[in-house]
């Protein structure tokens, strides 16, 4: 019975958790609930992925209403993988949150924090699993609104401004998506994604459909923070609580990329997206600029958290680059980087959260000589940094390797050069932190600083080890990503 309702349970369990969390009082109750919920969801999404890999695409009629009239939850290889990413990262971050969040957020607000936290995860999982375009919009707003709350809970007063800016841009993006979906409904009379794909097949010259395409791609890119629509990201990441930054960097933008993939390939199809409207050219340009500009901006930052935020913009560029290559290798590289970047950025932000936990600052000047005081934390940061650069035996290398192969396959050398330059720039900004932490004498005030507690280090190292593991054993990540890319391209109308 439970097996049949797996897709619904993955969304319903965190939703119920979000409602119950505020009722559990001021103690550790809400955290325990969040932990139980997130681990259950992780187990369920693992189960779902094995099931999809074994039996192919699953369709689930929500409430017993048969699609296309009812809302359909549709799980294929792509979203089963994204579900696993979201569930795994949120489970690890929840473990980390107990100490980190208790330090950064007032105790009377903790239960509301966990409520918003679970609501955010509900939304992200829901966007990923749903097969209904309007349902996607609603769940997008559920996750966005709870994200604004989470960002606003940051300790510094600037967090409020960051959250407000994010709210304005996020709402504009979501409304664009709403209008686009409305145009699609107007043109086709359906909201079910599979149905939309069938009916849009012969409508690539319809002006309404083309406007819908523009609205939806811009809306999704805002959510994804693809250059030049990234303005909300640096401040939101810098001022949000450490655990929230890790969660957002690893999951929210990945789900944004998923929305883009779903609409470009499954719904609009290759013919409309790339042959008629040449979205690949626009995205390639934006992504290339994102890689270079994001990396350059990252080098100039003194706040390490902000530096990592700009680096996220560059990494999103890599993901979009892979998507816009529209080949099996390119698409696999994009999906792979979606998975790998979630692992590396979460590890880096968690390691940085350990630093913030001890010294209440993430400014690079305050990190001088700290590696001797907090060796495990900085070892984790360095390992995450190596992965970000793309050193062999880390996940970063695998996705960059596939990305390079994809560009060379197409014979687009300038893009290959951009990828390499981006990696070299990553060396520069990661090195700045390493240099400050390892090669500068510690300040007098740093003498009293101790290693971060095990409650923070264990989740961080779990992710660091995952970074190394998936850099060596690539069967799960590469295998699933390639299969997902093949399926996407085949469903979208063959390899161009």
């Amino acid at each position, binding site marked *: 019975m439970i097996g049949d309702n797996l897709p619904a349970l993955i969304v319903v369990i965190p939703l119920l958790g979000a409602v119950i969390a505020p009722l559990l009082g001021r103690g550790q109750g809400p955290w325990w609930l969040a932990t139980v919920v997130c681990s259950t969801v992780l187990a369920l999404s693992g189960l779902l992925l094995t099931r999809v890999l074994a039996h192919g695409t699953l369709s689930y009629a929500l409430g017993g209403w048969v699609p296309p009239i009812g809302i359909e939850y549709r799980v294929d290889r792509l979203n089963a993988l994204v579900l696993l990413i979201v569930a795994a990262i949120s489970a690890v971050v929840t473990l980390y949150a107990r100490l980190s969040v208790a330090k950064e957020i007032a105790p009377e607000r903790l239960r509301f924090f966990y409520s918003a936290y679970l609501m955010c995860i509900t939304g992200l999982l829901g966007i990923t699993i749903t097969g209904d375009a309007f349902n996607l919009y609603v769940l997008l707003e559920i996750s966005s609104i709870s994200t604004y709350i989470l960002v606003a809970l940051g300790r510094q007063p600037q967090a409020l*401004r960051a959250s407000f800016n994010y709210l304005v841009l996020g*709402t504009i993006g979501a409304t664009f998506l709403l209008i686009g979906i409305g145009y699609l409904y107007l043109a086709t009379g359906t909201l079910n994604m599979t149905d939309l794909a069938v009916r849009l097949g012969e409508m690539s010259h319809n002006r309404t459909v083309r406007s819908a395409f523009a609205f939806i791609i811009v809306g999704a890119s805002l959510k994804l923070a693809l250059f030049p629509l990234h303005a909300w990201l640096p401040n939101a990441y810098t001022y949000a609580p450490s655990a929230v930054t890790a969660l957002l960097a690893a999951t929210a933008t990945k789900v944004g990329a998923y929305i883009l993939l779903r609409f470009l390939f499954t719904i609009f199809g290759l013919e409309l997206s790339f042959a008629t409207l040449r979205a690949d050219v626009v995205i390639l340009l934006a992504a290339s600029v994102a890689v270079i500009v994001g990396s350059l901006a990252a080098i100039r930052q003194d706040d390490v958290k902000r530096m990592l935020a700009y680096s996220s913009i560059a990494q999103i560029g890599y993901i979009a680059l892979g998507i816009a290559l529209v080949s099996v290798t390119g698409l696999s590289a994009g999906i792979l980087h979606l998975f790998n970047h979630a692992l590396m950025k979460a590890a880096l932000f968690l390691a940085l959260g350990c630093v913030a936990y001890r010294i209440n600052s993430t400014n690079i000047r305050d990190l001088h000589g700290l590696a001797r005081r907090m060796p495990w934390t900085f070892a984790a940061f360095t390992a995450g940094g190596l992965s970000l650069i793309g050193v062999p035996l880390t996940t970063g290398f695998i996705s960059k390797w596939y990305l390079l192969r994809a560009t060379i396959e197409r014979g687009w050398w300038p893009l290959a050069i951009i990828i390499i330059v981006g990696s070299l720039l990553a060396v520069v900004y990661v090195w700045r932190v390493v240099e400050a932490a390892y090669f500068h004498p510690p300040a007098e005030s740093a003498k009293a600083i101790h290693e971060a507690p095990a409650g923070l280090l264990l989740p961080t190292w779990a992710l660091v080890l995952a970074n190394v593991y998936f850099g060596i054993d690539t069967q799960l990540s590469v295998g699933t990503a390639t299969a997902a890319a093949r399926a996407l391209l085949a469903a979208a109308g063959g390899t161009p």
Partner: protein
Amino acid sequence: MDWIGHYNYWIYVVLMMIGFYAVIAKPNLVKKVIGLGLFQTAAFLFYISIGMVDDGTAPIVWGHAVRYSNPLPHVLILTAIVVSVSTMAVALALVVAIHRAHGSIESNLIDGSPPKKHE
């Protein structure tokens, strides 16, 4: 082309652009929130318009009805209105909190000056 007949689509676009302009151009945060509200409401007007069917009545089963309007966009937009209300609530709560922290809700005044210490 029936330009006048589609007047509600024209109004939707004009309203949306007024809201968009307010969001971008007004420094006052409450005015930005109002602009955002207009922007979203314009999208609702669009959705409600697409449910219109010529000579259609309200979609309630009724013996004399010849045609019914399409109820689906209306139901969809009820959901979107709830979303919009929650966004407004969070936005206004943020504006109140910003006022407490900075003593102003004019974004041009807030962004330049360091925030007041609170708590």
